[in-house]
C-alpha cells in the first residue's frame, strides 16, 4: 500500500493540485462574500454547478463537438477554451449578482440575523439544483472532449497532463488578477473597507449595496472559472455536483480561514491534496466523509482556520 503510494505520489500530487485549484476558486466565492457580509453564501455551490453546464453547452452546442469528433488544435483550441472560460465566468458572475438581489438584499435591509439569509440561500440552491435536475432528466451530462489530454512532460515518474497544467497556470493567473484587483484598485479598496467596518465605510460615502454587488460578481466570476476547469478535468457535469464540490470548497475556505483570500488559497491546496491522498488509501466512496471530518475537526479545534488571521468577534 505504502509502496504503491510512493510510486504514484507525484501523479497523485498533480491531480490533487489541480483539484485544489478548483477548490480555491469555488472557495473564493464563499470567502469574498463572507469577508464583506459575514454570511455563508450557501448558493455558491449551485452557481458552480450552473457554470459547468455553461461550459458543456459552449463546447457541445456552440462549437458542435460530439463524442466522436476530432480534437481541436492550435488557435481553434485556444479560442474554444477561451470562450468556454469567459462564458462560464460571465454566467456565474451574473447569476451570483442576481441571487444577491433576489434572495439576500431584502433580508440584509431588514437586519434579519444569521439564520434568515442562510435559509433563503438554501432555498435558492434547491431551486437551481432542481431546475437543472428537471432539465437534464436527473442524468449526468457528458461533455465532449475538445482537447486531447496529452502528456507534455515528466516529473520524476509522473506524467504531466496538459489539462492539469492548464488548470494550474490559468488559476494562478486568475488569482494574481484577483489579488491585484482587491489590493490595487479603488473598488478593491472599497471592498476591503466594507469588510473592515461597514458603518464607517457608509459614512465615508461608499455605496455599500454597490460594493456587495461587486463582491458577489467577483466571487461568481471565480466560481464560474472553477466550473470550466472542472469540466476540462472530469468531462462531465450533473445537477448534483454543486452540493458535493460546494461543501468541499466551503471546507477549504474554513480550513484556510474564511474571509480572507490567502486562506482560500492555502485551504484549497491542502484540501485538494489531502482528499486525493485520502481517497487513495480509503477509496473514493469515503471522500465526502473525509471532507466532513476535516471540516468538523477544524471548526472544533481552530475555528479561525489553520492559516487565517483571527476574525474579529465583535463585528459578525
Amino acid at each position: 500500500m505504502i509502496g504503491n503510494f510512493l510510486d504514484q505520489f507525484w501523479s497523485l500530487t498533480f491531480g490533487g493540485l489541480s483539484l485544489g485549484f478548483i477548490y480555491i476558486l469555488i472557495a473564493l466565492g464563499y470567502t469574498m462574500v463572507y469577508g464583506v457580509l459575514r454570511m455563508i453564501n450557501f448558493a455558491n455551490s449551485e452557481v458552480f454547478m450552473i457554470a459547468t453546464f455553461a461550459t458543456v453547452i459552449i463546447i457541445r452546442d456552440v462549437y458542435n463537438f460530439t463524442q466522436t469528433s476530432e480534437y481541436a488544435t492550435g488557435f481553434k483550441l485556444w479560442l474554444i477554451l477561451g470562450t468556454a472560460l469567459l462564458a462560464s465566468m460571465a454566467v456565474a458572475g451574473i447569476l451570483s449578482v442576481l441571487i444577491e438581489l433576489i434572495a439576500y438584499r431584502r433580508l440584509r435591509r431588514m437586519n434579519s440575523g444569521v439564520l434568515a439569509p442562510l435559509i433563503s440561500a438554501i432555498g435558492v440552491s434547491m431551486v437551481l439544483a432542481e431546475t437543472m435536475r428537471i432539465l437534464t432528466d436527473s442524468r449526468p451530462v457528458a461533455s465532449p472532449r475538445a482537447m486531447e489530454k496529452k502528456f507534455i512532460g515528466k516529473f520524476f515518474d509522473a506524467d504531466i497532463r496538459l489539462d492539469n497544467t492548464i488548470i494550474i497556470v490559468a488559476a494562478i493567473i486568475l488569482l494574481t488578477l484577483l489579488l491585484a484587483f482587491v489590493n490595487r484598485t479603488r473598488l478593491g479598496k472599497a471592498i476591503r473597507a466594507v469588510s473592515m467596518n461597514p458603518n464607517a465605510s457608509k459614512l465615508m460615502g461608499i455605496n455599500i449595496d454597490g460594493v456587495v454587488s461587486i463582491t458577489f460578481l467577483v466571487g461568481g466570476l471565480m466560481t464560474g472559472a472553477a466550473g470550466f476547469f472542472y469540466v476540462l478535468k472530469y468531462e462531465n457535469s450533473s445537477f448534483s455536483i454543486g452540493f458535493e464540490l460546494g461543501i468541499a470548497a466551503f471546507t477549504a475556505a474554513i480550513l484556510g480561514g474564511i474571509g480572507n483570500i490567502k486562506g482560500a488559497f492555502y485551504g484549497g491546496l491542502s484540501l485538494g491534496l489531502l482528499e486525493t491522498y485520502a481517497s487513495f488509501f480509503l477509496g473514493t466512496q469515503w471522500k465526502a466523509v473525509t471532507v466532513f471530518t476535516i471540516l468538523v475537526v477544524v471548526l472544533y479545534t481552530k475555528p479561525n482556520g489553520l492559516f487565517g488571521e483571527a476574525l474579529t468577534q465583535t463585528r459578525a
Partner: protein
Amino acid sequence: MINLRDKGAEIWEKANRPQRVAIAIGWIALAVSLPFLGGTILNTPIADYQSVLVYPIAMFVLMAIGLNIVIGKSGLLDLGYVAFFAIGAYTMGLLGTRTGLNTWEILPIGIAMAMFSGIILGVPALKLRGDYLAIITLGFGEIVRIVALNLGALGRSGGIIGIPTPPPIFGVEYAFDSHRVYYWTLLVIILLAIWMVRRLSVRRAGRAWESIRQDEDAAELMGVPTFKYKVWAFVLGASVGGAAGVFYASKTLFIAPDNFTLQISILILACVVFGGMGNIWGVIAGAVILGYLPDRIRFLSDARLLVFGLVLVIMMNLRPDGLLPRKKREKALPNKENP
C-alpha cells in the same frame, strides 16, 4: 398583516375550561376522521389518499414538531435532521430483522439511539456559531447516509428489506395496506409530542430556549446554562426524529440510504419555516399543507423540491414569521449581531 395565530390565541384565552376541552376534542375528531374524507375534494389523484395521510403528511408533521424544538424554540439551525430519522429507521431495520423484538419494544431503543447520536453531534457542534452549526449538522446528515451506503452490515445501497410490521395492540391489526391504522397510531405519537413540547415550553426549559434564541450572550450572563439547554433542545428534537424513523421503517417494510437524503432535511425545514418558526400550530399547518399539496396538484409532484425551495426564499423575504407566527410577546428582539 393578519395574524391568525393571535386571533386563535384570543379565542383560546377567552374560553373557559369546558369550551377549551370542546375545541381540543373538535380538532382531534377532525384529525381522526381524515381517512374517511378520501372521496371528497381532498382526494389525491396520484397516490392512494390514505397512504398520503401517513407519508408524507403525518410523518412530516411529527418531524416538523421535532425540528421546531431545535430551530423554532431555540433558534439553532439544524440541516441534518434526517440523520436522526435515519438512525431511528435503521435501528428498527436491524433489530427488527435480526432479533425477535417487535416495533413497540424497538421504539424506545430507536429513540434512545437517536438521542445518543444527538449528544454525540450536539456536544461538539453546539459550541459553534449559528451558521457553522448549520454546515456541521448538514455534514452529519450526509455522513450518516454515506455510512449506511457503504457498510455491509447496513445493506449498502440495497438497504434492509423485510422489516416486520408492528404487532397488533388491543386487537387492532397492522396489515401492510391498512394505512389508516398507521395514521391513527402516528396521530397518537404526534399528540404525545405536542403535549411534551407544550409542557416544556411553559417550564424552565422553554424559557431557557426562548432566552437563548433571543440573545444567547445575555442569557448566559443571566445565569442560564445555555450550552446545557442547547444540547437538550437538540436531543429532544432528535428523539422525535428517531421515533418517526422507527415508525417509518415499520410502515414501509423496506429502507435504503436513498430515503434519507439531505432533501428530507430541507423539506422538513421548509415545513417549519412555512408554517412559522416557533409556533407549534403553525408548524403543523405548514407540514400538512406542504405534505399534502404536491400530492393533490399533479403539476407540483414532479417539481416538489423546486416548489419547496421557492417557499423558503419567498417566505424568508416576504413573511419571515411564517403562516402562523409565534405570539407577539415571544417575538425576537432585533438581532444585535447585525447592526
